[in-house]
């Protein structure tokens, strides 16, 4: 087990290093770092000062290790737009994105699991057909357009919900969150729904497949023979068995929710890291872009690592295969 975890940590570090190399090549070797790292109106004196402080006169490998050394210490340079360390700007905005992603995840689970169970227990029926076609529609619908339609219906036409910004946040247990005020919750509903719908399709499919694979198993027949109600068999016995794959996939998918928040945050002007990165690409604020990519990739790798380790704890077969 320990060997498995150590090997996975080693691989994770390798992936992060590879990402750093790619980003380094993109920003420092292909482009002119001065062009990228300095605002357009920099004077010659400023250019020389920065070139010297970055050690741009040194050979590329030396430069790479300087970049890596700074990155490890969380130093990605200062943002031109905010004139503050890039990492600070990102970490400050991360909670808003995490809140959005978490809410979306909850919505997709609360709606998706029951729908998947329903479709799974009635295979090839009208209900199953409708839910499955609906889920294809769900993942076919471009996320950004779906968000715009939500705004059009619920903000513009009906005027029920606000469409931009995060709204009032309150402090609960030392965390600033939208859940503390009604205004905050109202601002959260549309963006969270937008982000959740794509995920919902996945949860429905996973649950349905799980139910269909579990229903013919012996322990279900045995439970029926004991005279348990169908509801109890489904919600207790079958549920327990299908939760493991759902939990694993959801763990990984939480990372992709954070990535897809780029789209949602852009549409709903949600002040998280996703909107920040798009704004920064537009404003050529490269230190923020570099910091975002490395921070998000690091987060992703950590999530994947945790899920892998958890999975091997839950299911010894995985451990055996990996060893």
């Amino acid at each position, binding site marked *: 087990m320990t060997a498995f975890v150590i090997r996975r940590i080693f691989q994770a570090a390798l992936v992060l290093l590879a990402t750093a190399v790619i980003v380094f090549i993109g920003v420092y070797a292909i482009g002119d770092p001065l062009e990228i790292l300095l605002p357009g109106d920099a004077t010659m004196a400023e250019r020389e000062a920065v070139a010297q402080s970055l050690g741009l006169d040194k050979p590329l490998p030396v430069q790479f290790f300087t970049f890596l050394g700074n990155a490890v210490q969380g130093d990605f340079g200062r943002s031109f737009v905010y004139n503050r360390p890039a990492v600070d700007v990102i970490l400050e905005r991360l909670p808003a994105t995490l809140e959005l992603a978490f809410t979306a995840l909850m919505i997709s689970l609360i709606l998706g699991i029951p729908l998947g169970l329903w479709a799974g227990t009635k295979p090839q029926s009208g209900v199953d057909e409708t839910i499955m076609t609906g889920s294809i529609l769900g993942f076919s619908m*471009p996320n950004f357009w779906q968000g715009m339609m939500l705004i059009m219906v619920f903000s513009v036409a009906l005027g029920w919900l606000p469409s931009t910004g995060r709204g009032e946040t309150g402090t609960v247990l030392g965390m600033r969150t939208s859940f503390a005020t009604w205004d905050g919750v109202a601002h959260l509903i549309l963006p969270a729904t937008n982000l959740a719908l794509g995920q919902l399709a996945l949860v429905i499919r996973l649950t349905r497949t799980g139910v269909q694979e579990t229903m013919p198993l012996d322990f279900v027949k045995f439970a029926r023979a004991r005279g348990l109600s169908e509801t109890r068999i489904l919600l207790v016995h079958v549920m327990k068995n299908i939760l493991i794959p759902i939990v694993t996939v959801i763990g990984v998918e939480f990372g992709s929710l954070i*990535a897809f928040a780029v789209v949602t945050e852009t549409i709903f002007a949600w002040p998280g890291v996703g909107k920040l990165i798009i704004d920064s690409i537009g404003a050529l604020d490269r230190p923020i872009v570099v910091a975002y*990519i490395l921070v998000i990739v690091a987060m992703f790798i950590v999530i994947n690592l945790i899920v892998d380790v958890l999975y091997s704890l839950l299911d010894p077969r995985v451990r055996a295969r990996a060893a």
Partner: protein
Amino acid sequence: MIALAPQGLLARSIRGVVASPKAALALAICLLLVLAAIFAPILAPQNPYDLMQIDLFDGKLPPLSRGYNGQLYLLGTDTQGRDMLSAMLYGLRTSLAVGVTAGVLALAVGTSLGLLAAYAGGRVDATIMRFVDLMLGFPTILVALMILVVFGQGTGKVILALVFVQWAYFARAVRATAMVEAAKDYVEAARCLGLSSPRILFGHLLPNCLPPLIVIGTIQVANAIAAEATLSFLGIGLPITEPSLGLLIANGYQVLLAGTYWMSVYPGLLLLVLVFAINIVGDRLRIVLNPRLSQ
């Protein structure tokens, strides 16, 4: 089991799709849209990017209105007086071209690497599959974003980014199928005949790996179209000179809050119908071509 000839496979795929009314309808819609895209210059009421043909006076007209010169705008006009229907037909052309190109290139790259992994085995297999796992572990949009940031923007770069995020799906599927096929007698026989590795790979193994490739290829084209639209909407995809459906929707977004709905709703609906129809066909193909389900 007798290996299916590719011709038989194509016939079986089409028969299977047509057998389901839902999938048949979706296939018809796909073909119709492809034809509309190919013949866009003939079908479109105006060339939306010929400045001589558009009139600023006709800007922001709602659907079914008549323009300054009395011409009918079936789906309204955009802020610059461009006929929406024409812009959408041209946008469809761009979206389909980018999506299909990316899908086909990803198929070529992924299939070659997947076959190689299955045939070579050992260290080559392990290395390729490690990359596949790595790619599949990251969300499409994050990888595409990274590539576009590193390499800069443009049509070629968008296609590169899409191929980069999609090849792994093909590689994984081909490898899994090819592993099963490689153990069969006909491959052994081909080896005994002293045929070259490329010939065995592409001439003997590949035809038998086609069913999963057709399914994934269909779905990945839909994904590529949707991903390109998303990137273009975010302003990091195609350049303004090549307006895809995603870019049209992005333009419509600017005026959506003012209640001007047709500039984003119609291109969005067209994009949705296109992606949805391809996915329905793909889903049906998955059922038809899956040997486990058809037995």
